[in-house]
């Protein structure tokens, strides 16, 4: 069953690539995404009972942590597929939309493979594929800005991937020296204490910088606001909501390999790099003029928060990181649907150009407010609870300065987000009332359910999964 999961988006991509499937492409994509989500949930349920399912030893396996990421990818894939259905239909019909859906499914396929693989070399290939298969989605608008964004995205993230591959080769060399041949998450962790320090240190630096460029850590984040603002909104939801998290997942899984050598000070590097990202992103949130860039900077902030908490190297910190990962995936994808709805209603991405959104589109205005409160971490939303858990983990780890800085700049980012959003929602409408396409309304409605529910109710199954997944990280 696990092997079937990425095959559905692949089959949907092949279907959409066939000429004459123009009208069916959005439906086929959505149907494939729903089946993928169902299978992913079933796989996660099966994993919870046995702790790990090994499909092909040393190559394909699923544990609670991988299962959690798999479900999040499938969830965002499904809602983004639904939103795409309405979002693109108003712009144009025909061949380009069909090819968009083929590419969109391939992008989902590459992301779904990351949690399913346990061989580090193959994981690297699929991380690189996520870039290659999303570049043409970012450049979809085919104007100068979209081409520039796609180019920056590709060059910087592939530069990162090339730096990371040298780190991975050094890691394989270090593993070889210990006499082990299992180049898997577990194999590396078992052999890590016997690896030579210079190799482990060089691999750590290269992998953190290389994959960090793809996650969007400061100062390697410059491509992220461009790509995440120029791509069509459902693609932004995939890029910001889950692609960055999928690469962060790779860094998190390798963390304890490097943390086995205390001289590397992995925790300190994580906390420092994470805090720099949070601080810079919070300041950029204050001064941005584009509401899609606003949410993109918020992604840099959230990635920084998670890296900081992962640097505490404690089990409670890991649970908080994973809770934040879930909150970010559902809230950020919803924010980009809200941004897409606002763009459809107003025709501009400029914050200053949108006034009286409540009068132009009540749905877009409501979604913007809900998304802004949820991603900012307002009380009553999942990000608030996960950030409280991160503060608690930091206090228990005696990281007082880190927690103090984190608290200050999370608050700065929160007020920055709300200042911009309230400016857009309030005032007299500058454009006449517009009705959003039905699939967009459905995507917003379905996307809002986890955003609202997870802040007030943590399902027992999700709670258990978070604990099991944190045990896999094993701080």
């Amino acid at each position, binding site marked *: 069953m696990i092997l079937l999961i990425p095959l559905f988006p692949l089959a949907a991509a092949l279907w959409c690539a066939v000429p004459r499937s123009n009208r069916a492409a959005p439906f086929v994509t959505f149907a494939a995404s729903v089946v993928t989500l169902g299978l992913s949930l079933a796989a996660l349920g099966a994993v919870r009972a046995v702790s790990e399912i090994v499909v092909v030893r040393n190559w394909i396996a699923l544990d609670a942590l991988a299962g959690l990421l798999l479900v999040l990818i499938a969830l965002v894939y499904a809602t983004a597929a639904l939103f795409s259905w309405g979002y693109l239909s108003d712009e144009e019909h025909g061949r380009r939309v069909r090819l968009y859906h083929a590419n969109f499914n391939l992008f989902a396929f590459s992301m779904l493979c990351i949690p399913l693989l346990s*061989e580090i*070399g*193959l994981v*690297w*290939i699929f991380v*690189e*594929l996520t870039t*290659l298969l999303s*570049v*043409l989605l970012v*450049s979809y608008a*085919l*104007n*100068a*800005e979209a*081409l*520039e*964004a*796609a*180019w*920056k995205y*590709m*060059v910087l993230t*592939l*530069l990162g991937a*090339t*730096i990371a*591959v*040298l780190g*991975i*080769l*050094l890691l*394989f*060399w*270090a593993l*070889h*020296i210990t006499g082990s041949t299992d*180049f898997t998450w577990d194999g590396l962790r078992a052999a890590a204490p016997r690896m*030579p*320090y*210079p*190799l482990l240190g*060089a691999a750590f630096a290269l992998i953190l910088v290389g994959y960090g460029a793809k996650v969007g850590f400061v100062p390697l984040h410059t491509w992220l*606001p*461009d790509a995440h*603002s*120029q791509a069509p909104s459902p693609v932004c939801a995939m890029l910001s909501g889950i692609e960055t998290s999928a690469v962060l997942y790779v860094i998190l899984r390798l963390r304890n390999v490097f943390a086995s050598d205390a001289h590397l000070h992995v925790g300190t590097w994580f906390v420092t790099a994470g805090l720099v990202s949070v601080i810079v992103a919070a300041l*950029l949130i204050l*001064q*941005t*003029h584009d509401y899609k*860039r606003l949410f993109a900077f918020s992604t840099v902030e959230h990635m920084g928060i998670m890296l900081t908490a992962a640097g505490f190297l404690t089990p409670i910190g890991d649970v908080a990181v994973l809770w934040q990962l879930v909150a970010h995936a559902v809230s950020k994808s919803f924010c980009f649907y809200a941004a897409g709805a606002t763009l459809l209603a107003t025709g501009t991405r400029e914050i200053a150009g949108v006034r009286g959104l409540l009068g132009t589109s009540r749905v877009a205005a409501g979604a913007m407010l809900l998304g802004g409160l949820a991603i900012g971490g307002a009380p009553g939303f999942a990000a608030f609870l996960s950030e409280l858990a991160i503060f608690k983990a930091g206090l228990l780890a005696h990281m007082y300065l880190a927690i103090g800085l984190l608290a200050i700049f999370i608050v700065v980012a929160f007020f920055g987000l709300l200042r911009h959003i309230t400016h857009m929602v309030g005032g007299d409408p500058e454009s006449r009332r517009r009705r959003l396409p039905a699939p967009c309304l459905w995507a917003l409605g379905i996307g809002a359910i986890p955003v609202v529910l997870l802040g007030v109710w943590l399902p027992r199954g999700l709670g258990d999964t978070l604990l099991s997944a944190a045990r896999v990280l094993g701080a």
Partner: protein
Amino acid sequence: MSAVIAELNALVLGLFIITTIAMTVARQIGACMQLFIVQSLLLAASAFLLGASPVSWHLIALGCVTLASKVVVIPWVIRALVPGEVHQRRELSQTIDVPAALLISLGLTLIGYAFALHLMRSAPSLSPGNLAMGIAGLLVGLFLLAVRIEAVPQLLGILAMENGAFLAGIAVAPDFPLIAELAIAFDVPLLAFIVALLARTAYRRMGTTEVGGLSALRERVH
């Protein structure tokens, strides 16, 4: 490894780094492409030499895939998709002049060499020269990427970096499971296809392939 093979490999490595440095100063895009083909040939030659004795099918396969992908497919894809006029153009907007570029490349080569020596103190490698020249090639490729703004030379910068990483990789991880072969066989041609497609679109829509110089998306401060 016999002494003759080791000496031949050393010659190949020397030519590899000279070719990579030459890429940073070649102004014409077509010449940059020719140098990349030579660099890829040298990577394949080093893989064949290291894989010859004792016989390593992994390395021989890597050499074959490199020849097919980087010497044949990628140049063909780029020539087919990027307009012919672009290949003949001299890139006059390179940000650093030739003597400075040579000096910086030399400095990066020395840094790569020192870094490789540091790593080799802790572990033996199949061919120490490969590690040193591989890391140097990666750094010089990074420099090439930084100073060029034309689409094709920027792509060649990324691919030169990757050639450097794999030149180092075949010395330290000759039995690396599949990654190099798969990456070179599938990822790299896909990358070339996408870059060439973007460059062609940019040329058609904006009349230029100087995509690295675009800067409309900067954060504005009032």
